[in-house]
Every structure is written in C-alpha cells, then in structure tokens.
C-alpha cells in the first residue's frame, strides 16, 4: 500500500447539533411501520436543527449518505428526494455512498466543506431502511421484508468485480484479524471465544440502557428463557452457534432501520448555538480492497497515523474510543492498533470488563453494532451522535465515568474504507 497524509484545516470546524431516529426493525414496531426514507432523514435532520437551535432556512447545504440507495431505496438521487422533508428544497446538496463507511465519510464531507469556507452551516445525514426492500411500482411506505437470500448476493457489491469475486479472495474478512491476533499472542480458541462473549455481554448491558439501540433485552433474560442461569453460559451454548470460525451469532451485527444527522459550522461561530461545541480536530483516512491481506489492520494503522500526525495527539490523549464493530472482534483488534489498549494485553482488559461503558477504558459505550444494530450507511453517523452526547456529558445512563474530553472513532466499512476522526469538546 501507498501511504498518504492529511493537513490542517483552513479553519476549525465544530459539531453544533445532532439528531437521530433510533435503530430498530420497523416491522417489529407498529408505530414505525410504513415510515419512509424522507420521514427518517427528515426527522433526524429536524432533530439536529432543534438541537442546535436552527431553522431549516439557516442551513446552507446538506450531504446525504446511504450505503446502497438503489438496492434499499430504488433511488439514484436520494438527496433530491428527501430535501423538502426538512425545508431545504432549493438548497444545494450532494449524495455519497461508501457502504458501511458512509456515516464517517458523511462527517468528512461536511467538515471539508465548512473548513474550505464554501459554507458556514452544513448538515450531513444518513438514512437507511436496511431491514426491508422497496417494491417497484408502489409508493415508499409499502415495503417488503429483506431476506438473507436477498442480502447475501448484494453484499458481493463491496468486492472488486474484475478479480476478487472471481478469484475467491473476499471471504476472509470476518475472521482474519482475530485469527492473526490469536496466533500473534498465543491465545487458545477457547480464550478467544471467552473474550468475544464477554464483549457481547458488556455491549448488551449498554444497549439495554440506550434508547437509540436496537437489542435491548438483557442476556440474563435470554439466558433464562433458554434454561441457563448464567448469561455467559448461554453465550457459549448452542443457542448462540458459531457462524464463522470465531464469531458466534452475537458476534455479528444485525440489520437495522435508522437515520442520523449532524450539523457543523466554523468553531469561531459555534458558541452562538445552544449546545457545547464539539470540534473535529482531524480525520485520517485509508482504504484497501478486500483481496489485500490484513486490509482492515493496514488501513486502521494508516488512518490512525495520519490523524495523530495532524492533531499532534497521542493515544494517551484519547479518553473514549468508538469502533465500527459489525465484526465484533474489530473492537479489540482496532483498539490495540490505534494504541488505545496496550498491544497483546487488550483481551485481558476485555475479560476484566475495563472496556465496558462503566469501565476505566471505555469502548463503544452505546453497545456496539452487535447490540446497537447496524443500519449500514447510518452506523458511522450514529457513532458520531453517541460520541457527541458523551463529550457533552449528555449520554444519561450510559455516560462513561472518565469525563471524556477527546474521542476517537475508528470508522470502517465498504470493502474496505477506514476513516478515523478525533473529536474534542470545546471549553
């Protein structure tokens, strides 16, 4: 791979508003069923404007992201199709799509825009109805359920079509990094399983307390239903079978419907608005195709190097880490790669619960993809939403205990792209 660099912004940019639609499967919630892309994006956008104390007329430009607008939404220009839902008809906008990295690219687009001086107030949002599919010839509120046999062939779309699909080089991703970790540090398969199950357990403890999360039933309750007193015993049981060499059912993200938006402006203006501004200090980025060995590790290393270099920060300056962990093991592997946990020791920290939302080195206090849910293109923006609440001290029952000032987000996805922003609460 060829390395890159990122420079300082022409002017500092801060987040002044965030808004969300909670992650869920609409079909399981009669009060949600029948809602459309416009209503999802519109609600998240208007919530973000209310959070900042803005009206739609105040926002100058917006970015729209989702993972795969043709597949999930039968739309080629989704930004045009949602703009009027939140009073921005006639304003400039653009759509972008980077599969599961979309939500992080969404922040980058807005930040670069404001940093350049092109606009002062920019909204960037993502909406994804990932649990269903559109039906040709019917209006948007009539959808059908997405089945695994619909999704699996479509997931091929993240693999290179010239070579990777034909040469069978794209199927290693779920297990590759944790396999390398196991070999490097000499863990047994049973130890890896225990680490992953402990991560599942603590992620669910957080999600139970998080109104934005999808899976809110404690493992204690699910264990009891299956005849186990100990939730860890349940997580190790045939009720939670292996789906890959290392990952059990609870180690994989579940599709969700959801939406999230952010509003940014120059930091010098940010104090005029309602909430404590959260500055975007920098965003590192790197991408590598799925056939390249250890691609997730390589791009995480490179993007982290860039963002540390441009911000002048070190891992010791990071109080809180979010990791896009639609593959649960990424939480551990990426945390060590960006220096948030000591190399080769992170698995012990996981077993001790130190990375839980109420631990001393929290990771994914919102629950992580496997409990929070995974609305593909929205997931990154939901991470940003959750990071902003934590940095403001507004995260309620899942507020981490170390009064975080600085948060890093290891954004990742889409076969594969890595975006690593560092956010800092402005005093």
């Amino acid at each position: 791979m060829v390395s890159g660099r990122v420079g300082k912004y022409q002017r500092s940019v801060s987040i002044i508003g965030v808004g969300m639609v909670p992650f869920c499967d609409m079909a399981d919630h009669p009060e949600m069923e029948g809602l459309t892309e416009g209503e999802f994006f519109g609600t998240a956008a208007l919530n973000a404007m209310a959070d900042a104390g803005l009206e739609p007329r105040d926002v100058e430009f917006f970015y729209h992201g989702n993972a795969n607008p043709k597949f999930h939404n039968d739309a080629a220009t989704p930004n045009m199709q949602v703009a009027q839902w939140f009073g921005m008809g006639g304003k400039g906008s653009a759509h972008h799509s980077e599969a599961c990295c979309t939500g992080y690219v969404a922040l980058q687009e807005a930040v670069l825009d404001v940093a350049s001086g092109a606009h002062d107030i920019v909204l960037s949002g993502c909406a994804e109805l990932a649990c269903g599919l559109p039906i040709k010839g019917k209006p948007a509120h009539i959808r059908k359920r997405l089945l695994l046999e619909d999704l699996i062939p479509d997931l091929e779309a993240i693999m290179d079509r010239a070579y990777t699909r034909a040469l069978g080089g794209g199927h290693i991703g779920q297990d590759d990094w944790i396999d390398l970790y196991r070999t490097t540090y000499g863990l047994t398969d049973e130890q890896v399983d225990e680490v992953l199950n402990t991560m599942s357990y603590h992620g669910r403890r957080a999600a139970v307390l998080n109104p934005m999360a999808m899976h809110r039933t404690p493992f204690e309750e699910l264990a009891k239903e299956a005849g186990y007193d100990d939730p860890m015993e349940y997580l190790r049981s045939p009720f939670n079978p292996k789906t890959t060499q290392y990952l059990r059912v609870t180690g994989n993200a579940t599709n969700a419907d959801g939406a999230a938006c952010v509003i940014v402006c120059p930091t010098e203006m940010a104090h005029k608005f309602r909430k404590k501004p959260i500055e975007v200090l920098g965003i590192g980025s790197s991408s590598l195709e799925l056939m390249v060995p250890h691609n997730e590790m390589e791009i995480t290393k490179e993007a982290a190097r860039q963002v540390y270099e441009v911000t002048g920060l070190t891992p010791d300056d990071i109080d809180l880490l979010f990791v896009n962990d639609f593959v649960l093991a990424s939480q551990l592997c990426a945390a060590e790669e960006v220096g948030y946990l000591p190399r080769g020791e992170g698995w012990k920290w996981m077993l001790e619960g130190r990375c839980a939302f109420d631990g001393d080195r929290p990771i994914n206090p919102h629950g992580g993809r496997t409990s929070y849910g995974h609305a593909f293109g929205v997931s990154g923006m939901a991470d940003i939403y959750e990071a902003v609440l934590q940095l403001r001290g507004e995260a309620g029952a899942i507020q981490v205990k170390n009064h975080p000032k600085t948060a890093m987000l290891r954004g990742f996805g889409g076969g594969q792209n890595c975006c690593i922003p560092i956010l800092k609460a402005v005093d």
Partner: protein
Amino acid sequence: MIEKIVAPFYEGLEHHKILARKCKECGAIEFPPRYACNACGYHETEWVELSGKGKLTTMITPATLNSDPWNAKIGPYCYGIVELEEGVRINSTVFGVTKKKAKTLRNQLPLPVHAIFAERDGYTTLFFQIDEDVLA
C-alpha cells in the same frame, strides 16, 4: 489505444498461465495485474508470468456465514493468505483442507501450495491447493 489488462489475464488463466505486472521503478509485483504500482505509487508496470508456487500462511475454515457451495463442489477448502515465491501476497481460496485436518494443518503453517485452475460459468479462475506430499 488503452492497454487491456483484465481480459488478457483471464485468457492467460485459460492456458494455465498466471500473468502479473512488475513495477518499472521498484520492481514490486502487482497482482492481480493493474496499470500502476501500489507498493511505491509509480505509474508504469509491465507483464510478467508467475510460477503459481508459494505458501499458505493463514487458514480460516468456512462456516455458515462465509461458505461457498460452488467451492465445496470442487473439494474441501479454506480461506487464507497465499504468499507466492515472487513476493505477491493475496487473500485466496485454498483446497485440500478438510475441517477434520484443519486443526493439525493450522499448526504446520506455513504450508506449500500450488496454483489450480477451475472452469466457472464461461471463464477460468485461479485457486490454490496444498501440495500433495504435505497431505500424504
């Protein structure tokens, strides 16, 4: 004239030839073949042929979420990183690994492999296989 790369590569596979590109500046092998070098970022590469011999350095056994029924028709297989003797490293599909043998074989990594060619829906593709003397 735009130089064709993908079609000649697959034509090569039909004749059991593995074509790659070599960087004209740093000498790194670009595989699968593309125009430019992703080791050093130089714009120009030229054709070279690979031996198809190398080693498997990691081994992931397929399960419900990442198995490929078409592969299973050829034989038992795993996914892993293949390092070719010319220095190329790729994620690939490697045959000759049964679930039963996987644990033992995993402890013997790296394992020698060679290229195999398979006909699939109108094109020839490239996989690898663990050398027979290792499995014997």
